[in-house]
């Protein structure tokens, strides 16, 4: 029998937030508790969305794929055996869904980029790239953003995924290997090759 529904994260506003363990939320979700699953979605929505967005360079596609990934995860949550963390398992669903989507729509690449946040203009590393010392000093952040996304889209899906997960999202080689269901050596070699490709594509902006 299902546990009595306990208030989850959102109800603990007046007291120090005691985060419900992931295992508990997963167990309740397996019983069909959508309140618990709502908490899981809230916990991972930004990371899942960001990964898909960086892979597709399209906000609308990322929105659809992120929602569908969470829906798919709920539909097959019975198959989650707990061998890995729920986050890794969920990530795997999202990654597979995204790669399949991109393979099937290879000829219909359309970028719909999100805006840059306020902090981008104050990032010293980024400012250095568009400073007067660079040969492309006329390039603004928006142009850099477009060039970067275009260069990323030229990579194959597995190579792009490795760059996104490692260099953008900061995941470890080991985590990436689990998510992409390959060994660490493959992750490293893909990362090396993808960076080389990006270097050559963006050479004008990296001098």
């Amino acid at each position: 029998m299902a546990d009595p529904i306990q208030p989850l994260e959102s109800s603990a506003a007046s007291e120090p937030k005691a985060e419900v363990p992931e295992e508990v939320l997963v167990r309740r979700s397996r019983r069909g508790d959508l309140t618990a699953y709502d908490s899981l979605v809230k916990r991972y929505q930004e990371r899942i969305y960001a990964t898909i967005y960086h892979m597709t360079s399209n906000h609308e596609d990322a929105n659809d794929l992120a929602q569908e990934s969470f829906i798919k995860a709920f539909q097959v949550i019975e198959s989650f055996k707990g061998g890995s963390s729920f986050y890794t398992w969920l990530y795997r669903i999202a990654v597979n869904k995204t790669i399949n989507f991109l393979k099937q729509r290879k000829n219909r690449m359309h970028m719909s980029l999100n805006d840059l946040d306020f902090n981008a203009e104050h990032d010293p590393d980024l400012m250095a790239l568009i400073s007067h010392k660079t040969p492309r000093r006329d390039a603004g952040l928006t142009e850099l953003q477009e060039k970067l996304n275009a260069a990323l889209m030229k990579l194959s899906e597995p190579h792009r995924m490795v760059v996104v997960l490692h260099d953008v999202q900061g995941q470890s080689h080991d985590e990436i290997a689990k998510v992409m269901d390959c060994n660490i050596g493959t992750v490293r070699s893909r990362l090396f090759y993808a960076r080389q490709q990006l270097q050559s594509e963006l050479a004008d902006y990296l001098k």
Partner: protein
Amino acid sequence: MDPLLKLLTLKRHEVPPPGYFNNFSSQVVTRIRLGDSANSEGVLGTMFVEAPGLLRFIQMFTARPAVAGVFASVLFLLLVVGIVYSDYSTPTNPENFMQSQAEQISPISTVASVTPGFLDQSVPAPSGLVSSTNPVFSFEPVDSQSGGQNSLLQPVGYTH
């Protein structure tokens, strides 16, 4: 720090529209409640995934209504032409009808042409419709035992 890695930090500053995540989880839960996975798993979703060209075709209509109008006009014209053509192509000439029937029984004449010794050599080669050589349409018994003339191979007069 590697300039490429510096440039890649730009991706971290790309953010969805303000408030985007406020309703995200509720939308997911609502879709789960409604059993709404049709966007990706349903017949239409599958069809679009299997045939992305079809999706592009439909999207072209939504993006350019003029194209949709032209396409509809072409379809209408084709329909009209089809109707008009079907009126004129009705077989009313009996000779045409007979000719089409002759073409249907052509296998027999083909057999006859490849086995000339099978037929009586005195019989002139058929130059027109030879319906009487078709054993399917003949109910006369074959008189091969008595050495009589095979009714299936009787000469036929060709008069028009």
